């Protein structure tokens, strides 16, 4: 990348891969036709969209008759899945099960249905490692449960949920199951058949594709309402002139991600693990969040006790290092991370987490740079804080 920043926020968004941009360019210039038009100029574009769809379906091992709906992003896919299932099946019941650590696109959609459309929501608790309680799930399923929606991996901690187990339970009880796989798509292999999911969300800009385009996998026979009504685009499930460049970009980016996925996982894991080790070695009073055995290979979420996350983030920023504190879309809000709170972290600690997330364009030097400046930054902020070793004992952990 051209910037001389060290970008360690790949769970927030990723750079657009140059190869993906190259694949998109024709659709941003001479191939501008509306895919719904019936002259050949447009029909060729329509066919390329269908090829793009088939490619993605192949990679996630979807059935030929399953649907893959292109949307305007991960949030839209989540909303389409949840509201679409809720409204199409409310005659059968109005109970939905989700978890307490979902992304806001899921959480706030559930809350909306609860508040304004008479649905009842069960929020599954998680353990200290951030993994949902399967027993609780089992006990929560009722006659009128129409949907279970649990994310595949958490964006803040990278913790991977037991989707396959949830899927078997859901299938056994005949409940529709949706998973938000935004943080998994492009990072781990996905097999919708093995997972027993009925719906699965992905978002292109998390795997080196363009922003503003996502997809929702919908298993054949799933009864669902569109979120965006209108023309018959996307098999009648998502109206609107197709974002041709975006769709081609999503598909190409998705394909590229799986070209040598295992190698890339190892490469990122190595950097992540070294950063983790160095931080624990060099900085006292650090807590690593999330079950270490069930974590995305690229994500590290740590708490530096006695200081707030934002300050560290901003001092790293002055060193040209981009990381996040809480999830990107809640920063600017005051609430501490709902994910860390759900994992039992006290309020002050939840407020102080920093997430490092590696990606395709990171190098080992990036770790070196962080390790060089981070201890000083943390020390400086701790000195400025009224708490910490030898100071007031404000909290205990």
């Amino acid at each position, binding site marked *: 990348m051209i910037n001389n920043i060290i970008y360690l926020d790949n769970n927030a968004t990723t750079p657009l891969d140059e190869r993906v941009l190259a694949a998109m360019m024709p659709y941003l210039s001479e191939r501008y036709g509306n895919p719904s038009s019936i002259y050949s100029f447009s029909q060729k574009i329509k066919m390329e969209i269908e090829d793009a769809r088939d490619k993605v379906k192949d990679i996630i091992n979807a059935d030929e008759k399953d649907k893959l709906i292109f949307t305007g992003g991960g949030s839209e896919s989540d909303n389409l899945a949840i509201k679409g299932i809720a409204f199409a099946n409310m005659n059968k019941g109005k109970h939905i099960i989700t978890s307490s650590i979902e992304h806001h696109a899921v959480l706030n959609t559930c809350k909306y249905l609860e508040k304004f459309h008479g649905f009842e929501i069960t929020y599954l608790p998680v353990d200290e490692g951030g993994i949902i309680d399967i027993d609780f799930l089992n006990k929560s399923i009722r006659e009128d449960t129409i949907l279970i929606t649990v994310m595949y991996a958490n964006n803040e901690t990278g913790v991977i949920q037991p989707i396959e187990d949830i899927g078997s339970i859901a299938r056994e009880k005949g409940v529709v199951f949706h998973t938000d796989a935004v943080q998994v798509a492009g990072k781990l292999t996905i097999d919708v058949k093995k997972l027993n999911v009925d719906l699965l969300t992905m978002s292109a800009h998390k795997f080196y594709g363009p922003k503003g385009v996502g997809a929702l996998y919908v298993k054949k026979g799933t009864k669902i309402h569109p979120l965006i009504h209108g023309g018959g685009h996307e098999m009648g499930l998502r109206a609107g002139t197709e974002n041709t460049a975006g769709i081609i970009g999503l598909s190409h980016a998705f394909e590229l991600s799986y070209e040598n996925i295992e190698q890339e996982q190892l490469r990122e894991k190595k950097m992540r693990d070294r950063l983790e080790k160095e931080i624990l070695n060099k900085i006292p009073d650090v807590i690593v969040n999330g079950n270490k055995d069930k974590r995305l290979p690229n994500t590290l979420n740590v708490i530096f006790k006695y200081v*707030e996350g934002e*300050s560290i983030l901003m001092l790293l920023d002055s060193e040209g290092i981009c990381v996040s504190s809480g999830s990107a879309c809640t920063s600017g809000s*005051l609430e501490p991370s709902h994910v860390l709170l759900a994992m039992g972290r006290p309020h002050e600690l939840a*407020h102080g987490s920093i997430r490092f997330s590696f990606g395709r364009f990171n190098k080992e030097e990036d770790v070196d740079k962080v390790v060089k400046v981070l201890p000083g930054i943390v020390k400086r902020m701790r000195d400025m804080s*009224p*708490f910490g070793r030898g100071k007031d004992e404000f909290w205990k952990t």
Partner: protein
Amino acid sequence: MYSEKVMQHFKNPANWGKIENPDGVGKVGNPVCGDVMYIYIKVENNIIKDVKFETFGCVAAIATSSMATELIIGKTVEEALKITNKAVAEALDGLPPVKMHCSLLAEEGIKAAIEDYMKKQKP
């Protein structure tokens, strides 16, 4: 998001640290976010001669702590009591709306420290 001035004060805050044997100490917490500020003052002839802060809080909390201490140093106790969080925020070229509450820490910290000082003055 933050003004230049906020970032300057955040990166190079004035008057952070502790005063040994202060004349007054304020320990306040922000009810909105749970962040905390300690403020120490030294008073001579009713004038604030020295002030130091320790803050556990966000960028805005630290920048306003720094600015507030600069604003009251050399002032009389009465003048210092008149400093509002709005004045501190303005002196920093403003704060993002969601961050206005952070500036309350500084205002309240100063008030608490002066109150502590006054209490100690009473025989």
